[in-house]
Each structure stands twice: as C-alpha cells, then as structure tokens.
C-alpha cells in the first residue's frame, strides 16, 4: 500500500527511520520494515521541525518525509505554513527546533555550498537587478560548483546552455530579464535552478502571477524534468486541481501541521477540503487525466441548484 492517508505523519515511523539511517540498513530492508513509506529513501525528512519568524510560530513539531524521484505538492489555505515549511526544507530559515535531513544527514552538518549542489530552491516571485540578461542569470546557478580559480569551466557553460535549451529560452539568452513576459521570466528562473543541477528542486508557487497557458507550460516543464531526469520536485501550489494533476504526493497543511499526506486519489476527499479549506465541494474525476478534481460549492451554485 503506497501513501496511505494519515493525519500527521506517525512519529514512530520517522524516529525508527532515523535510527535505521544511522545503522545504514539497506533501502530494501527499509522498505520492508516501513511498509507505508512511499519510497525507499526519502530525499528530505523533517524531525519535530518548528519554524517561525520573530516570536511568531508558524510550523510546530512537524514530521515529514519527501519521497525521492517524485513530485510532491504542498497545499493548504493561506497562512498554513506551506511556504515557511519549504524555506525550512531549503535551510533558508533556521529552525527553532528540530532537524531537516537531506539524504539522511542533518542539513546543518553540510556546508551551505554542499547543500546547494544537491538542493535547488526557487523562492516565490524572485527579483533580479535591472539589466541582468537571461544567460547571466542562468549562469548564476553554477555558483555552488565554482571557486575563485574555477569560475567558468566547460561544464558550467554546458549546464547553462542545457538549462536554457530545456526551458526553451536559448534565443532569449541575451535579452535583459526585465524585457520578458512573466512566463518567460519564470522559465529563466527555473533555468537558473536547473543549471544548479541538483537532484532536488524546491519551488515556491512557481505559477503565481502567470496566466493559465503559462501555468500549464511551467507545470508541464517540471513534470518533464521529473519524468526524464528523475529529479525530486517539491512545490507549493495554490491550485488544488493542478496539484492533483501533477503531483505524485500531496502534503495537505493546516495551521502549521500536516493534515494528511499521500497520493491525490486518496487524499482528496470532500471532508478534507471542508476541514482544511473550509468550503463545501464535490470531488469529481478530471476529464483529461482522471485525477481527482475539486469543484467548490459556492453560494451562486447552490442558488442555481435550488432553483432547479
């Protein structure tokens, strides 16, 4: 059974797993012993992670395992802590307490540059200085692989050009970023994260401020990256239906806690939507993909139903 829905990840699972890591038991055994784990070795794992800003606590005592090689979407209402959690996973935010494990090792034990070789993070609506060209931006993604004496190796150039090609913006390379459309700009930022060449990609609302066509374009691109290159993708998404379409796993958050986690087919229920988002809805099947789709019941639709 893969990805059974559960309220909050069971603590015992994670504690057990941590110990197994220390004993370096092979992934096969791990899978046998933790039958409800999604994948043999989680790419990212949190143990009793608490995060906050100033004196304001956002995420409390959170245990989460992110499966390697899959697409995970963090969803939840505004202010539920999903972006904060993503920042915590990317070590952009220092935890109040608890630990994030990257490939089984506490993230604080790695140097920040080593982490940057394995984990790329695209913040929400990042900004670039005026006049910066697309190629210059994408080339910045090579930073963790460079030193002062090795600032622009052949490899750096290859990965930069490759990232431009994959995202389809090679011909925009010499244009300043501020002259591009929102979708093109977002692709340039994703290209930068790709040039970083990390196994894990974290994206905070990669589709905000984009029109529908560009949203689909970006999500398709991320899906392809996952399918063809096996990259682990974790993203915060606002649109539940898009999350269901593209993600292998949903992590549903509410008030700084994980409400449930698992495959969209299992997680997306009318009860979940009503308890987490506070709206009545119907879950139907997406006519294109067969994935669950949430159709909210609004006052207007109720009225029209009752009229009939």
């Amino acid at each position, binding site marked *: 059974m893969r990805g059974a829905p559960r309220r909050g990840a069971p603590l015992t699972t994670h504690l057990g797993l941590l110990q197994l890591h220390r004993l370096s038991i092979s992934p096969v055994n791990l899978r046998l012993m933790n039958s409800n784990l999604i994948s043999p070795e989680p790419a990212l794992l949190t143990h009793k992670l608490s995060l906050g800003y100033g004196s304001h606590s956002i995420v409390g005592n959170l245990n989460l395992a992110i499966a390697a090689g899959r697409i995970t979407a963090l969803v939840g209402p505004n202010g539920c802590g999903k972006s904060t959690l993503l920042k915590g996973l990317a070590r952009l935010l220092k935890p109040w307490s608890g630990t994030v494990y990257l490939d089984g090792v506490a993230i604080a034990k790695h140097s*920040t540059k080593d982490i940057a070789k394995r984990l790329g993070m*695209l913040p929400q609506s990042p900004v670039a200085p005026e006049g910066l060209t697309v190629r210059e931006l994408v080339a910045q993604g090579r930073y*963790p692989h460079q030193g*002062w004496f090795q600032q*622009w190796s*052949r490899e750096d150039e290859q990965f930069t050009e490759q990232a431009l090609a994959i995202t389809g913006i090679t011909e925009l390379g010499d244009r300043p970023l501020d002259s591009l459309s929102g979708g093109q700009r977002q692709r340039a930022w994703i290209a930068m994260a790709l040039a970083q060449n990390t196994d894990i990609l974290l994206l905070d609302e990669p589709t905000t401020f984009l029109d529908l066509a560009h949203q689909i374009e970006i999500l398709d691109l991320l899906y392809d990256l996952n399918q063809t290159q096996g990259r682990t993708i974790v993203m915060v998404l606002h649109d539940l239906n898009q999350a269901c379409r593209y993600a292998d796993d949903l992590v549903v958050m509410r008030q700084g806690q994980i409400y449930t986690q698992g495959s969209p087919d299992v997680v997306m229920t009318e009860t979940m939507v009503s308890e987490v988002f506070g709206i009545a809805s119907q879950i139907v099947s997406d006519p294109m993909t067969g994935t669950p789709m949430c159709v909210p019941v609004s006052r207007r639709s109720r009225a029209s139903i009752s009229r009939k």
Partner: protein
Amino acid sequence: MAIRHPLLPLSWRFDRRVPLRLLVLAIAISAAIVLSVGYGEYPIPAVDVVRALLGLSVDNPDYGFVINTLRLPRVIVAFLVGMGLAIAGAILQGLTRNPLAAPEIVGVEAGAGLAAVSLIVLFPSISLLFLPVAAFGGALIAALLVYSLAWTSGSSPIRLILVGVGVGAIAAALTSLMITFGNIYDVSQALVWLAGSVYGRTWEHIQALLPWLLIFIPLSLLHARELNLLNLGDETARGLGSRVEWQRGFLLIISVALAGASVATAGTIGFVGLMSPHLARQLVGTSHEGLIPTAALVGGLIVVLADLLGRSLFAPIELPCGVVTAAVGAPYFLYLLYRNRNQ
C-alpha cells in the same frame, strides 16, 4: 567570453565589452592626468609632461620640480580617491540592491569626516597615517548604525536613504560642533579638508592612502562574484550556497574601508560613489567582475577631471573638486530619485 586553462582547473568569465572599455578608460585617464599635470599658472607642454613622467630627460630643470613635487601627487591622489569612492559605491549599491546607495548618501562619508575632523582638532600633531584609521572607524560606526536601523527590517530603498541622510546629518552636526570648539588654526585646516579637495596633497598623503587601496581593491575584485549573487536577493543567494550574512558583512567592511581611507585623504568628495557605478553599468552591464574595475576607472577619471575643472573654470580662483562633483552629481542624484520613483 571565457578564459580557460586547457589542463589546470582555471577559468574565468567576463563580459566581452569589458577589456575594450577598460582600455579606453585607461587611455582617457592617462590623457586627463597629463593634461592636469601640465595645466596651471606655470603651464608645461604635454610632451614634456609625458617625458618627465616616463623619467626621460626634460630641457627645463624647473619642470621636474613642478611636476613631481607640486602637481603629480595631487593628480594621483585625485585618481586614487576617485577609484576608492567608486568601488565603495559599487559595493554598497550591490549589497543593498539599491541604486541610490552610495557612501556619501548613506552617511558613511559623513561618519568618516566626523572621525577625521575630531582627530585633527583633538590631536593636531598626530601623524597623517592615523587619519585613514580614524576615518575608517567613523565610517564603520555610521555604516553599522544605518545597517541596524534600516537594513534589518526590510530593505526598502527609500528607508535606507532616509536613515542614511539622518545619520549623515547627525555626523555633520557633530562635525560643526568640533569645528566651533576647536583651535582656530586646526579648524581652518579641517575646513579646507572638509570641502573635499586634493589641494596641497603630497606623496605623504599617497603613502597613507595606498596601503588601504592595495589591500581592499584586490579584495573587492575577489568578492565581486558574491555581489552578483546578493543582487538576486537573500533567499536566492542563500539557496545557491552563499553565506549571505558573512559575505554581506565582509563586503560592507571593504566598502567602508575604501570610503573611509578616501575621505581621510581628500575629504568628502560627493556623488562620485553614486555616479560611477551607474555610468559603469551603462558601459559593461551588471556583472560585478567587470563592473567594479570599470567603476573604479570611471571614478578616477571623474575626480581627476573635476579637479582640473575646479582649477581652470574660475582661475585663478580654485574650486575644490568636491564642489565640482556635487554640481554634476546632485542633479544626477535627483534624476535617479525621479527614475526610481517611477518604477
């Protein structure tokens, strides 16, 4: 464009515009220096200036004295100070991601000025060598004050400027206080110096300034790459593996040291640190590896030309070069404010 060693892991990248622009700037600066050294009440033909600078024999024995003792140190100070201020400005603008940031705007120059004037007034007999140290201290205190008051709580460009102007005003007021209570002879010295002038600068001044530049200019070039990253915002920079806080602190110290040493040598020459990085960006783009050396040469050129103009515009009356740069720089600052507002 890239330079790569075929076998060793050595490689660098630069904008293809950089080498040519640097060359043109270097030629322009050489020409300006020759012109400036030749100009004065006792004019010297450019050919003789070049010959004297190259150490060749010159017909007129007076030329050697006029050039090497009277004029050359002054012109070199102008060039060095311009470089220091321009790099300080380029770093500050990169650090704060704020096109309006510059040592003279965010109170760093005023802090350096206060410390230096205090030193002149309180310890009149102290060696010139201590002036840059005091100025560095003053500049650092001002920068830390501004940093703690403005930068930690969001990095709104206007907030930084306002706090900077406030801290600058406090420093200026304290400087006036020093001047009011100081010994009249020391004060008059301090006043000439405060106006931002390279008048009467000697090889001794260069000796006091040069070590600072020789240490901190190479450091600024070594850390140029980090500025590119910080320019993308803290989160992106951190995500790419930059130790953001550490880098920012280090770059701030480089910037403050260059600004402090420059102010200690030539007083507060305004707007050079603001204008030079902008002009350099027009020339070579935003990448700091090319921007910092270009801004340095632009700054050097500006101050050398400002000094030449100050001496020639209303000759025999001499305008301090700080007045000339302010006359050009203040409108430019207003223009930047206006453009920033419309974004």
